[in-house]
């Protein structure tokens, strides 16, 4: 195709047509000779050989696991534009999958902490692990983004279950919906039962031995007791895991927000309600303690999960603070870094193949070198640089 530009220089626009059909069918099936893709769509099988390759996640899987959150917003809208969600298999995720495959589930629960600068790929690695967890038969306890529970609380009410603590009814109902979508089939199969009686009010009682789904349904229908239901649910899961009835994978993004000094809830006397004053914090901190077994805890700490004054360093000790560090210690730290050369090349290839990086000059070696320099191989910066062109 020949075009004349305004400066009367002739330039030819090269077009790469993908060989796939344009339906919204996951793309991997037909492309096998692109070196930046892999056909292996089951994360349980991802190994070092799959490093820096994209694997695709089908629409139903995406709806099941990420409808309640878990994918960064910009990445999600980009994946919709590019006609299919593909996640790059990278070293942190491969490392975690290797460890989780080899865990000794009789030993107390191991905590893994993903850390790194903002925009480097922690949330996507966690999304990869969420997908892995369900493929490997774990019951998923997935909190997509903790600061949403403290920075943008819609309503906070004094707790019905515990004095001096606060409930978040709307967020709790949302999370219960997310939990039941992610784990629906598995819970039906496992048939877990409650081990205690929970009295919500004079007329609402969840008896001992009733299925967990009843507990979840109660929380979904009665926002007043939703937070209490979550506390009970997580308690039951812990006990069930320890008694070998199920295997639980806890995945939390933005864990350092639990130890933050700010929330947007202010009492009548103008004092701020700290994250530690919420009931949900207690529930999740109890779940991330290593006093149970037959499970794993994967957590990420991010500077952007803290208010702007507390974003000086991306390292876990600084972000978690003394209480947080002592809570999680000992943990396995896993650093998520900028792209290396292979991953960078793979990412640009993907953008070119999906017709996202359009400028012909940018597709040359010179263009790639410029992008590598200006983005510093930082994943988020690269995404923003490539977006307009």
């Amino acid at each position, binding site marked *: 195709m020949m075009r004349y530009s305004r400066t009367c220089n002739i330039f030819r626009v090269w077009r790469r*047509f993908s060989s796939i059909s344009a339906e919204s069918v996951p793309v991997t099936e037909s492309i096998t000779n692109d070196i930046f893709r892999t056909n292996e769509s089951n994360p349980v099988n991802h190994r070092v050989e799959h490093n820096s390759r994209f694997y695709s996640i089908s629409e139903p899987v995406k709806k099941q696991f990420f409808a309640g959150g878990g994918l960064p917003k910009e990445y999600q809208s980009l994946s919709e534009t590019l006609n299919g969600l593909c996640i790059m298999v990278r070293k942190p995720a491969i490392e975690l999958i290797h460890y989780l495959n080899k865990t000794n589930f009789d030993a107390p629960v191991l905590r893994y902490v993903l850390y790194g600068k903002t925009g480097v790929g922690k949330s996507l690695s966690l999304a990869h692990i969420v997908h892995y967890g369900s493929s490997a038969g774990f019951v998923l306890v997935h909190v997509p983004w903790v600061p949403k529970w403290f920075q943008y609380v819609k309503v906070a009410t004094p707790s019905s279950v515990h004095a001096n603590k606060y409930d978040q009814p709307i967020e709790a109902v949302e999370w219960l919906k997310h939990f039941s979508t992610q784990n629906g089939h598995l819970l039906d199969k496992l048939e877990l039962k409650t081990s205690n009686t929970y009295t919500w009010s004079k007329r609402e009682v969840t008896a001992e031995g009733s299925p967990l789904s009843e507990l979840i349904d109660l929380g979904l229908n009665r926002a007043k007791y939703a937070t209490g239901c979550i506390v009970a649910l997580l308690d039951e899961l812990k006990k069930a895991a320890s008694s070998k009835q199920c295997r639980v994978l806890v995945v939390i993004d933005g864990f350092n927000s639990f130890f933050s000094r700010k929330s947007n809830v202010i009492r009548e006397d103008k004092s701020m309600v700290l994250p530690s004053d919420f009931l949900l914090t207690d529930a999740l901190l109890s779940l991330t303690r290593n006093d149970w077994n037959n499970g794993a805890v994967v957590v990420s700490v991010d500077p952007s999960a803290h208010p702007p004054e507390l974003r000086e360093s991306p390292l876990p000790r600084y972000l978690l603070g003394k209480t947080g560090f002592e809570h999680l210690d000992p943990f396995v730290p896993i650093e998520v870094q900028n792209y290396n050369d292979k991953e960078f090349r793979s990412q640009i290839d993907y953008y070119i193949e999906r017709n996202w990086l359009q400028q012909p000059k940018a597709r*040359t070696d010179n263009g790639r070198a410029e992008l590598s320099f200006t983005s510093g191989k930082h994943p988020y910066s690269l995404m923003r640089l490539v977006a307009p062109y």
Partner: protein
Amino acid sequence: MSLSGLLRTLPTINAINSSLGSLSLLSRQPYSMYKPFVKEPVYNIEQLDKLIESGEAKKREFVPVKAARNDHNVSVFYDDLTSKFVNMVMVKGQKELARNLVEMGYMKVKQIQLAKYYEATTDAERAEIELNPITIFHKALENCSPVLQLTPIKRGGSTYQVPIPITENRARFLAMKWMILECREKERKIHFPERLAVELIDAFNNTGKVVKRKQDLHKQCENNRAYAHYRWG
């Protein structure tokens, strides 16, 4: 030594001004601080190499050159027209905001076109869809540029709108100005980048409000062709 190497070793404009004061006095162009013989700088590395190959560089070796501008660069993404457009979008000196708005607009153009691309079923259909936002922008500006303009000329007590030829710069200016004004209109519920994207794609397809404005101007010129001779009194 290559011309590009030589150019990079030249002193800054302040040094030039102080030592070669003869450059910056009154010139033929009343608002320009440069004399007529001072050349525009060439930023594009490919163009520089072409100058060296063709021998032009030898003639330019001792000709002084204007100061480098902040927004000019040798990036593979640099586009002259986009840079001009961003300057026109800019208000109160907020260049970064203007640039972000235009870049968001380009991204939205790509999103809209890619949606069409991935919905198309045949290769022929896909070949028709233009995906490059810069190409769409250039073609849209071409389609919006008028060929004549009207100027008020007083004859015998009345002012007539007389059609006269238009320079390339003026045509380009009008196209960009109309595009920006169109994107800023109405209740502002839809933000500038989204409106820009939709207007650019419409103009690329020779439809939309900006192209209509150009066509209205052409119609007016056609209607007033009887007064064309007023241009010369």
